[in-house]
């Protein structure tokens, strides 16, 4: 199905989608601050962010359902800022499927071929191909309401794919499905997307979905793209405190930086913690900072050890393969931190423990930064 795209891939210098300073306001409220982004051919990009951060707005701008206030939008070589949606050749999958209720599955899938005047024979073959891609060959004559949510969403996917879109847009496509089905649909979509080499923009507010499926993630908040990067970059080197706290679990500690003789130390609640020098340049930071440590970067130790941050066990949650511990800690920004104890040692509420931070991979932010 992707053969059309591949031939143009070699000659094209531009990315599949290029967003150049696009903005959008509704009345006086900005829904999207100036946005720059390039999405490569065949890339799976996820827009991730809390509700109301402008994900759908950005998607609708790309699809053409909204008109940008400023900026320009390219699809491949073409400037499409002023092009109406029905001429953009974009495939869209909506959260509520939006299958045409009076048409059969096959007619739904065929719709985009009809509008293009594809000959009957070819059309029939392509509908069949698309339906087999989503494993629904035997459902061609059903009406949408005779199918389950997952099946309906697969029809919607087939309908969007059959036109061989330049870009596939999906707006929280699986959020109406239960967890098991959601996971299997994620895998299926990823397989199809890889097989077709399809440029895909996927909207979700589910970070696990974003981390597991994406080539790159764009984390958004309040109409701004905060950080674009691979899942690993986003998780391990978040650009700011918002990204650090929004993606994955994070413990935040108030700290002071002390540099002497080329070595950098953190002072967290009076305890000195060594950190490796590959860390972000400390002189860019004020002396009062916030240290972000993932639960796996925290380990338990005796409260007496000199580099341990003192804490008290507050809640113990048994999770099967590990035990989740919530600790009260004065040095923590929210007064509380979370860690996972794989050894499942017996802790009791009220136990005094020490927390030792990993020396590598900690993220340090200026403390005046906004916390998500």
């Amino acid at each position, binding site marked *: 199905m992707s053969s059309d795209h591949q031939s143009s891939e070699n000659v094209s210098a531009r990315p599949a989608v290029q967003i150049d300073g696009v903005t959008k306001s509704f009345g006086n409220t900005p829904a999207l601050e100036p946005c720059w982004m390039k999405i490569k051919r065949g890339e799976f990009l996820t827009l991730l962010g809390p509700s109301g951060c402008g994900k759908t707005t950005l998607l609708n701008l790309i699809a053409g359902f909204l008109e940008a206030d400023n900026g320009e939008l390219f699809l491949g070589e073409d400037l499409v800022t002023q092009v109406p949606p*029905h001429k953009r050749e974009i495939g*869209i999958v*909506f959260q509520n499927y*939006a299958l045409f209720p*009076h048409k059969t599955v096959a007619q739904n899938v065929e719709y985009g071929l009809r509008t293009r005047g594809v000959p009957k024979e070819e059309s029939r073959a392509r509908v069949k191909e698309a339906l087999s891609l989503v494993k629904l060959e035997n459902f061609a004559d059903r009406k949408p309401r005779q199918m389950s949510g997952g099946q309906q969403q697969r029809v919607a996917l087939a309908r*969007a794919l059959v036109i061989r879109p330049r870009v596939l847009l999906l707006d929280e496509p699986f959020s109406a499905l239960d967890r098991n089905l959601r996971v299997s649909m994620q895998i299926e979509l990823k397989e199809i997307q890889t097989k077709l080499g399809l440029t895909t923009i996927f909207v979700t507010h589910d970070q696990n979905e974003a981390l597991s499926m994406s080539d790159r993630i764009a984390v958004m908040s309040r109409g701004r793209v905060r950080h674009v990067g691979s899942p690993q970059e986003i998780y391990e080197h978040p650009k700011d405190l918002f990204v650090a706290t929004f993606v994955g679990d994070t413990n935040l500690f108030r700290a002071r930086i002390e540099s002497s003789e080329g070595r950098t130390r953190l002072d967290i609640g009076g305890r000195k913690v060594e950190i490796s020098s590959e860390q972000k340049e400390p002189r860019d930071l004020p002396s009062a900072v916030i240290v972000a440590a993932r639960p796996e970067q925290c380990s338990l130790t005796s409260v007496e050890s000199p580099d341990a941050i003192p804490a008290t066990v507050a809640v113990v949650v048994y999770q099967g393969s590990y035990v989740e511990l919530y600790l009260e800690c004065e040095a923590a920004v929210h007064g509380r931190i979370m860690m996972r104890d794989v050894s499942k040692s017996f802790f009791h509420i009220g136990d005094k423990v020490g927390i030792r931070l990993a020396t590598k991979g900690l993220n340090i932010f200026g403390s005046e930064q906004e916390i998500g």
Partner: protein
Amino acid sequence: MKKAFSDHLLDWSGRLLVLLILIFIALPFIVVFIVSFNDSSVVEFPPKHWSLRWYFNAFSYEDFVKGLRNSLMVAAVGSAISLIVGAMFAFVFNRYEFSIRRPLHAILMSPLIVPNFTIGLGALLLAKGIFVPRSFGLLVLVHVMVTLPFVVRGVSVSLQNFNQAYERAAESLGASPWYILITLTMPLLLPGLISGWLFAAVLSFNEFSASLFVANLRNQTLPIAMYNYVREYADPTLAALAVLYVVTSAAVLTVLHVFFRLEKVLNVE
């Protein structure tokens, strides 16, 4: 579980009440029905001799035949215009926000509270003022005004239930606005459009008080012809006509019902 005596009493008195109400509603028609077969030219109850002569009379009385034809014409043209204009207004009200939206909506819906004879009188005076004669066109115009609110209401409800994501999906699939209108919006709104149109047609067919002001002798509608008849004669022809009226209405209602089943055939949720 055993019911208390008072519950029984309530139960039976309730049933009796419902029965009485039903009889009360049906009674006038039953009387008219019986009278229509009365052989005597004086309305009497109960009739002594039976005959179908008043039915033949109704069919052969020229004013009724002409009136029926006029009524059907006015209802057909009026409800068609009402449907098109009303659907368009409903669409605009549903999709667009503009400064005169509210006042415009209020004006269009005002025939719901303004009595029909006021509308007829107003139309007559206005037509006189601008030297427009009482004509078929004027009659149709008044009927459109009277039926428009019902069409706008009906279509608005269907539009509110219409998911705009369908249109967006179609747009992304390369459909032009016209193609979307024809392949999606219209078929999905069809039940609403049909019921709005039928409602307008029935209202228009029965309309009397506004028509009285703007119809002339040549284009008088059936209700006006009946009114004129009853002012001159007192025989049971009108009873016969009334029976025909009711039977026809029932037939139309049955067709309507079939149409609402059609909704399921069309697979519209």
